[in-house]
């Protein structure tokens, strides 16, 4: 079994895919920063930011539906912002009697809630496009270019290399448990022993996974040492960014800055 479905990268022949990963990373983070800096209730700016991300999604040829579906990932967290509807001080909009209490929704509360939703939705779409249009090794190059510590980049690179191997291991462990012990996915069916027993079995599986990764780490170190690894993480020098892309980077940053300033004007 191979878990390539984990890799979010989707190869396309699009403009966004052809961008230099460094330009893409900086612009994506700048967009998320711009969204965060836009004040509460600056609706015109949110409309424009939405037009920007929608254009980027279309240009990336990933499919608007795909990005929308993935962006639902942040939805459960919306629950954390729901109380703000009732607790923000301001002009009352609607009063809902709930049992012995009455809850008052305020205009300010609705404004803040909708703003939080919009911000999180716009930001996650950009993060999705970045991950789906950039192969991971290129993201590592971009991480090095923005001066991420070498050791961290090296660990993340090795982590990515072995992530699919370890997920395969986990799937094998889970299949073995389903076959021999108890399937946690069947509601209403008696599954194995007590709760503590089930947790203990899962713990044993986690421990097994760690033992295997310790052994694997030793083997990888031996293989690396055999090829001259001495603890220093070396990498190819980064190629220069083409002039046209530098221009796009500058224009993109300027547009985002203008949008944020507009947010404080309206």
């Amino acid at each position: 079994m191979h878990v390539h479905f984990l890799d979010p990268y989707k190869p396309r022949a699009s403009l966004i895919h052809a961008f230099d990963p460094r330009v893409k990373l900086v612009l994506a983070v700048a967009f998320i920063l711009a969204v965060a800096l836009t004040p509460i209730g600056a609706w015109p700016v949110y409309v424009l930011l939405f037009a920007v991300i929608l254009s980027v999604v279309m240009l990336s040829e990933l499919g608007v539906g795909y990005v929308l579906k993935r962006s639902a990932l942040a939805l459960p967290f919306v629950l954390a912002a729901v109380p703000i509807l009732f607790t923000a001080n301001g002009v009352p909009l609607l009063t809902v009697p709930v049992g012995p209490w009455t809850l008052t929704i305020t205009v300010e509360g609705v404004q803040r809630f909708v703003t939080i939703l919009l911000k999180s939705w716009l930001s996650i779409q950009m993060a999705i496009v970045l991950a789906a249009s950039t192969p991971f090794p290129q993201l590592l190059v971009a991480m090095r270019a923005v001066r991420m510590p070498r050791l961290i980049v090296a660990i993340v690179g090795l982590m990515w290399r072995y992530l699919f191997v370890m997920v395969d291991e986990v799937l094998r462990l889970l299949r073995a448990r389903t076959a021999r012990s108890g399937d946690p996915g069947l509601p209403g069916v008696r599954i194995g022993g007590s709760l503590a027993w089930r947790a203990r079995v899962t713990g044993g599986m986690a421990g097994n996974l760690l033992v295997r990764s310790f052994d694997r780490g030793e083997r990888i170190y031996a293989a690396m040492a055999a090829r001259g690894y001495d603890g220093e993480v070396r990498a190819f020098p980064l190629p220069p960014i083409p002039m046209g892309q530098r221009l796009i980077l500058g224009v993109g940053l300027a547009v985002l800055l203008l949008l944020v300033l507009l947010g404080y004007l309206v």
Partner: protein
Amino acid sequence: MHYSPAPLHIPDGFLSIYVAIIFWVVSLMLIVYALKRVNQDLGERQVPLMGVLAAAIFAGQMLNFAVAGGTSGHMLGATLATILLGPWAAILVMTCVVGVQALIFQDGGLLALGANIFNMAIIGVSVSYFAYRTVQKLAGGKPWGLYVGGFAAAWLSVVVAALATALELAISGTSPANIALPTMGAVHALIGIGEGLITVGALAFLAAVRPDLVKRDNTEVPAGRVVWLVGLVIALGLAVLSPLASSNPDGLEWVAEQQGFIGLAQSPLYEIIPDYAFPGVSSEAVATIVAGLLGTTLVFVVALGLAYSRRKRSSPAESS
């Protein structure tokens, strides 16, 4: 089976920009210090091991077991990483896990990543280390210290990380403290039991199969006292702050209001021309409509350009 997000990863948009940046700075400083310690204390053979362990912890979060009512418990792994690798390397491993979750799987935001690293890597490891070391010392080398210490460390680190998450949301003005803190605390007090049980199970397995990994005390490292103190301060701080903040949310509300105030205070700087929205447009509703028209035009132009370039791309293929 698909990758399911854990409830502690804060997405972008939920933290105010000030909170996000402060936690980025704090996390970065601590990571740089941890990097320095790891470079000093550990040999080069640790780098591949840390990469593989990060992958294992990421994958291990898929290991779950049925609790009641369709919910399931699964592990976060900060405690196991701390016990097996020592605190400094564990901070780096957990940072990489949380970072990849945000960058690749959008599990947690990029701007919020600083806070997420702080909650899951720094709190997760330092509180685990504090609890585990303390129990180990009390046990005086008896075998129960491993299990009780492991359980206490796993439970406490999950609960403290949850309280920190709630507090960050409250300071951002996203969630009121008197609702977020008790809810997050109560939910994660239960989740923490699952984490604790899995951790004990894993430790029992390791003690039987590879006793060298757990019996040798990996947690006795140079400058470990610093982590112990950080863990103590964070755990104590949140234990004192949480009831204070939730019973007396005015203080935090005040902080949130101040933050809102900072956001408001910035606007007059740019309001040099009063009532100035779009050139020649004064009311916000009209500005929104103009923005809508502009946005629609932009998207329309992009769509046209795309269709055009696609036709261009496909026509040579047809002719050949």
